[in-house]
């Protein structure tokens, strides 16, 4: 057995160990990397920035679950910080699936620890109602009617921030944060049907699929993966938004090293493959 074929039969636990270390070491050694801002992120930032302070609210939909939390939560907190720092009102919407409300709650806890924001005045938190697409459509008719009460059980009619907010006409931008195909639901139902402007924050997996919608303007902007969140954090920083912990930016060093390792593995694997195949042919 030659070197390459032995190499290819390496116990995969060694590979597991390598990946683990490639993430761990840069985190502990605090290797940081500069981040360049890409147009889709800039566009989303600008769209949020254009919302009038103390005017109509931005809607931030949390359509993600813990499995994508590490990528998507930094986006949510970065956007929330941006809004609270500028005095932009926010409707946090727990999203179309049950677990989203928990994520929204977490994001609020983190950001309200840094900014004085009060429920009903600076933000409103809407919970989960089953029905997915039906709920998105329903909000186009009447938001208060769809939910009735906020996440804490307070009647929406009694919240000052929602005075004059009836449906999508009163929401300049919806940003949907999701790792699934939910943003398409927003584009189709809120966007196509009600003309709502929609932005998206999504996982790196889904990002590639959303470029067609970006190009047509169906999405106002997009944050893709941890890198997208790090870019937003950078824009926040440039705009003077106070952020205590820039979680996404910190992770960029590990991300770089792990990618390099991954590429090295693919290249080595392929070299091994061609060498062994050729040997197999000659023999």
């Amino acid at each position, binding site marked *: 057995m030659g070197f390459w074929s032995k190499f290819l039969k390496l116990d995969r636990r060694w590979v597991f160990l390598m990946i683990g270390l490639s993430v761990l070491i840069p985190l502990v050694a605090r290797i940081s990397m500069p981040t360049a801002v890409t147009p889709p992120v800039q566009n989303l930032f600008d769209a949020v920035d254009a919302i*009038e302070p103390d005017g109509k609210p931005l809607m931030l939909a949390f359509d993600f679950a813990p499995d994508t939390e590490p990528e998507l939560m930094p986006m949510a907190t970065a956007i929330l910080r941006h809004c609270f720092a500028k005095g932009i009102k926010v409707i946090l919407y727990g999203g179309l699936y049950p677990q989203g409300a928990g994520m929204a709650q977490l994001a609020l806890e983190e950001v309200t620890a840094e900014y004085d924001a009060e429920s009903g005045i600076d933000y409103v938190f809407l919970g989960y109602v089953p029905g997915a697409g039906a709920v998105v459509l329903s909000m186009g008719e009447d938001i208060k009617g769809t939910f009735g009460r906020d996440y804490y059980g307070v009647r929406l009619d009694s919240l000052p921030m929602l005075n*004059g907010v009836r449906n999508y*006409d009163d929401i*300049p931008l919806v940003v949907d944060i999701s790792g699934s195909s939910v943003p398409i639901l927003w584009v189709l139902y809120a966007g196509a049907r009600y003309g709502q402007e929609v932005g998206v924050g999504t996982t790196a997996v889904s990002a590639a699929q959303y470029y067609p919608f970006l190009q047509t303007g169906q999405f106002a902007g997009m944050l893709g993966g941890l890198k997208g969140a790090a870019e937003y954090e950078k824009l926040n920083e440039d705009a003077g938004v106070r952020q205590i912990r820039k979680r996404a930016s910190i992770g960029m060093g590990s991300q770089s090293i792990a990618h390099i390792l991954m590429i090295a593995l693919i290249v080595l694997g392929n070299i091994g493959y061609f060498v062994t195949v050729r040997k197999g042919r000659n023999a």
Partner: protein
Amino acid sequence: MLSLRSPIPALLVCLLLSTPVFLQAQETEIPDPPPPPRNVVARDNPDDGGHAVMVTWDLSEDDFEGGRVRGYAIHRSVDGEEYEYVGYVGKGTSEFRDTREVLGNVPYYYKVLARSRNHGDSEFSAPSAPAISRAQVFHMGRLNAAIATVLFISLILYYVRSARRGKELFIRRIAGLDAVDEAVGRATEMGKPILFVPGLSTMSDVATIAAINILGPVAKKVAEYDSSIIVPNRNPIVATVTREVVKGAYVEAGRPDAFNEDSVFFITTSQFAYTAAVDGIMVREKPATNLFLGMFWAESLILAETGAATGAIQIAGTDAVAQLPFFVTACDYTIIGEELYAASAYLSREPRLLGSLKAQDWGKVLILFFVVAGTVLGLMKIEFLSNLFNV
């Protein structure tokens, strides 16, 4: 005067006086508000159930990149005298849809002013002529979607009907499918089984249905070649369906006795436990061919990796776009997206599958025509074709 004698009220007065003065001082330092927008027009918002008025205006002369205008505030009146604030839009926008408690059959007047960040507000524009909101019965803006829907329905009905009447509808060969025959033959030669994974989703998934349509002919071939097939399932309902399908295929091949009841089975609904179990089967049984057809999620790469390591010929097909890259790199043949549906129609020859596939092909021809024609016209700056598809 009395109040000034004691220090506290005096302080209060000072404060009260100084605050607005101070604020005003900051604002009046840079007066020079932008010019107001012009030509404000209000009319009934089209295509709605009433309760909305569309207001449009010409942008303020100072509304450009770097200009002073930050946005526009829209004010409304029912009598042309008392105006109330109804909404705000950002700069560069010249229309506003007023839906704030708009009543039907009441005339509304509108005025718009431009706002700036540091230069105060402009004067009001001249008021618009009155507009009355009414409900419409048909949404003219959606006429295009209505026409497309009707057209597509007729296409489907026509082709499904002609397929039912037994008309031959041509479908091109699918590369991965041809490999199935070869793979079944190889399995027989080697005396090893074929593994068929019908995806991890439920019966309501189109991909699962497509996979089962492919399973039938494959199982039949296996029966004819006297080879064997293993079908592990993640969904109990899918398991009962696949069992019936495989059994039926053996009967059709004239070898009902050769069907092994234990070859089609349900494992568990847990995603990763199922994956681990299928991995185990691949390692132990070393199937000659692995077919992964249907809906897959994150487990796709784990399955394909293990299969590749066992040296089996692997054919995968799914409409889960995010998983296709892993199948392409780790499998020998991959049936991509829509090809899976085409493959199921190709093999099953079911009229409703064939018919709708044909209708979809015509849809693609129409799309291609519009894309090409629209581009040719668009490059000549004629945009009427493109405008047909406004939503």
